[in-house]
């Protein structure tokens, strides 16, 4: 099914016309410059269409802000945006400075590195096979995300759209898992995953799940599932019944309606649940530490890799910083991809009611 959202997200064209001044925040001339944005924002940037008047941007802004208080909202918006950008990005910048500082010179870093050693980004791979750790984490995170989304979708559908006795207690039961510190699961799971099961012998050799991706995907899926179930329950519950009805009359099963209508329409929620699960698993340490021996060839995740730069008394901060910057890249890419889904207001025009 062609994905229409790509083409309707105005950000696609905004990149290309960076010509006019700050006064025209929302303007992308070829589209409808009004409020019916496909993924539309709520409020702030709406009244900015006479920006093409022939005046200096600043003058114009000043003049307009008197007659249109929306201008002030927009100014506030930009201040807020820049503030958020700065506060979220500064620690990254600082991390980069740490990475660029040569080992042993980690002192008094403010806005510039103490020395300049971009080689750290190469060294990261020389000291240990960091890419293997990254790959492991990626595979495990992907696997868990898929498992979580599928299973949680079913549960979220049941919780969000069906009425049945015991719904609330069962939801609370799911929630209860998140009450416990992960360590509470340690001893039993440690036993469980080191127990040898005859039926697993052909698959894993010694019959235990230890050191296999299954040993990571299974518990990690379970641990991060409550969040996904709750998110999906919320979003699925909000899809108007009318759309599901229409799908079912058209010939889908209940399950078919879930996958064809409800999930696509909950795209923001599904994508969010996916991103959150992926990131959580990707960076998870506690359980992966339990289920593997920390060897890259045994599916040890990225965090094992990052910690490998720690010595007995010394920490290679520059390499750790470089490694974590590299490690964040796949997630950043994922976010770039998923955000198209996260921001797609899809219910518009659905129903007349």
């Amino acid at each position, binding site marked *: *099914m062609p994905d*229409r*959202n790509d083409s*309707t997200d105005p950000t696609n064209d905004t990149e290309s016309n960076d010509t006019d001044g700050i006064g025209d925040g929302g303007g992308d001339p070829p589209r409808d410059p009004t409020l*019916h944005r*496909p993924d539309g924002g709520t409020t702030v940037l709406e009244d900015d269409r006479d920006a093409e008047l022939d005046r200096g941007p600043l003058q114009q802004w000043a003049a307009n802000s008197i007659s249109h208080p929306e201008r002030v909202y927009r100014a506030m918006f930009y201040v807020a945006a820049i503030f958020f950008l700065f506060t979220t990005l500064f620690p990254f910048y600082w991390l980069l400075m740490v990475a660029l500082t040569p080992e042993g010179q980690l002192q008094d870093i403010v806005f510039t590195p103490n020395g300049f050693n971009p080689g750290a980004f190469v060294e990261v791979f020389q000291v240990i096979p960091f890419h293997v750790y990254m790959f492991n984490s990626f595979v495990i995170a992907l696997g868990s995300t898929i498992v979580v989304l599928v299973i949680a979708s079913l549960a979220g559908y049941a919780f969000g759209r069906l009425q049945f006795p015991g719904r609330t207690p069962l939801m609370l039961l799911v929630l209860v898992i998140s009450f416990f510190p992960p360590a509470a699961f340690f001893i039993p799971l440690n036993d469980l995953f080191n127990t040898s099961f005859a039926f697993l012998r052909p698959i894993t050799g010694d019959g235990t799940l230890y050191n296999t991706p299954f040993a990571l995907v299974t518990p990690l899926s379970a641990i991060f599932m409550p969040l996904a179930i709750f998110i999906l329950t919320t979003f699925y519950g909000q899809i*108007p019944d*009318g*759309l599901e*009805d*229409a*799908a*079912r*009359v*058209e*010939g*889908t*099963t*209940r399950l*078919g309606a879930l996958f*064809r*209508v409800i999930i*696509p*329409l909950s*795209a923001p929620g599904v994508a969010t649940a996916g991103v959150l699960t992926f990131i959580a698993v990707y960076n998870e340490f506690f359980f992966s530490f339990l289920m593997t021996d920390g060897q890259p060839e045994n599916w040890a995740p990225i965090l094992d890799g990052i910690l490998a730069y720690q010595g007995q008394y010394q920490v290679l901060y520059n390499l750790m910083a470089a490694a974590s910057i590299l490690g964040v890249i796949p997630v950043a890419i994922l976010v770039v991809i998923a955000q198209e889904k996260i921001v797609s207001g*899809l*219910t*518009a*025009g*659905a*129903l*007349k*009611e």
Partner: protein
Amino acid sequence: MARVRLENVTKRYDDVTAVDDVSMEIEDGEFVTFVGPSGCGKSTTMEAVAGLTQPTEGRVYIGDDDVTNLAPKDRGVAMVFQNIALFPHMDVYENISFGLRLRKYDDEEVRRRVEQAADIVQLEGMLDRMPDEMSGGQRQRVAIARAIVRNPDVFLMDEPLANLDAKLRVHMRTELQRLHRELGTTIIYVTHDQAEAMTMSNRIAVLNDGRLQQIAPPLTCYNQPANLFVAGFIGSPSMNFIEGELVEDGLETRNFTVELDPTRLQSLSVGDAVTLGVRPEDVHLTRYADSLASATSPIDARTDVLEPMGDEVFIYLLLSEGAAGSMEEDPATSPNQLLMSVTPDTEIEAEQDVEVVLDRSKIHLFDSATGDALVHGLTDLPSGEPGTTRSEAD
């Protein structure tokens, strides 16, 4: 076989009974229209047929099967929803072809059918629009196309033309009739448009307050309404109702008396309250009434407001008794008002004294207590002494 049968279907919500013990049988290939006031249970009944709502009581049959517990997809129905319910994440083509793609038709066939359906609803060239880029009427047409593109046993259409202009509506009407004729599909239809109901349906089912009032061919409903409700509901403008009481030689209202032989109304006797109903077009100015086979004696009235409609003119009459008629009250139920319709070329003005007669053959009598129809047309109930009508003038 796609006979649809409802057996004592009841649907209760927490505090409302949306559908109340409705039973009906719709023949294979029949076109039945549900009409009734807003909130009377039309959509709910349809949903029960489609399987979208589970009746609290009663059973639904399609063909010979009890489908009460069958999933919607297995009922072979297609539905146009009152709230349209397009899939907002699909463009028009995908919306229309949704049901076909589910059934894994090959792409060629899907495209052919979709294009044809789009043609019927006049949406050619809009197949790649998204729902939120369309006007209200266009969306509704997509919804219609989505239903007709399939070949179901039963069509359920809940006000499919509500947002279309008169011309398109006429067009769609003929298209739907043609479809009905050619496919022989059973169609259940909801409309608020009397003309639609009258012209398209084999039978009309009138619902009120969740209960079925009458199911009968359109003209039967129009000419022989089963009760006061149906009489008042079918026909626009509505039938005039005048409260009266049976007296020795006829029916006495506050303003006039109609001669008839009360003994012929088996269930009632002198003194019982009876409501007289007469449609606006059956009220005639005495001076134009020569052609009537059987008219009542003239009634004095005064014209109040004239409402020119283009092809006809509505005249609100105040029967002579009532001088203080207020516009606020519904003229159709106020006892001393009478609505009549005349052709535009009739010479008449507002605030003019006139004399009118009622066409006796078109007078309906209803039992005021139960609302049930007693008789349609007084020609069979000759008055004791024709011609000696008296017009009360107090």
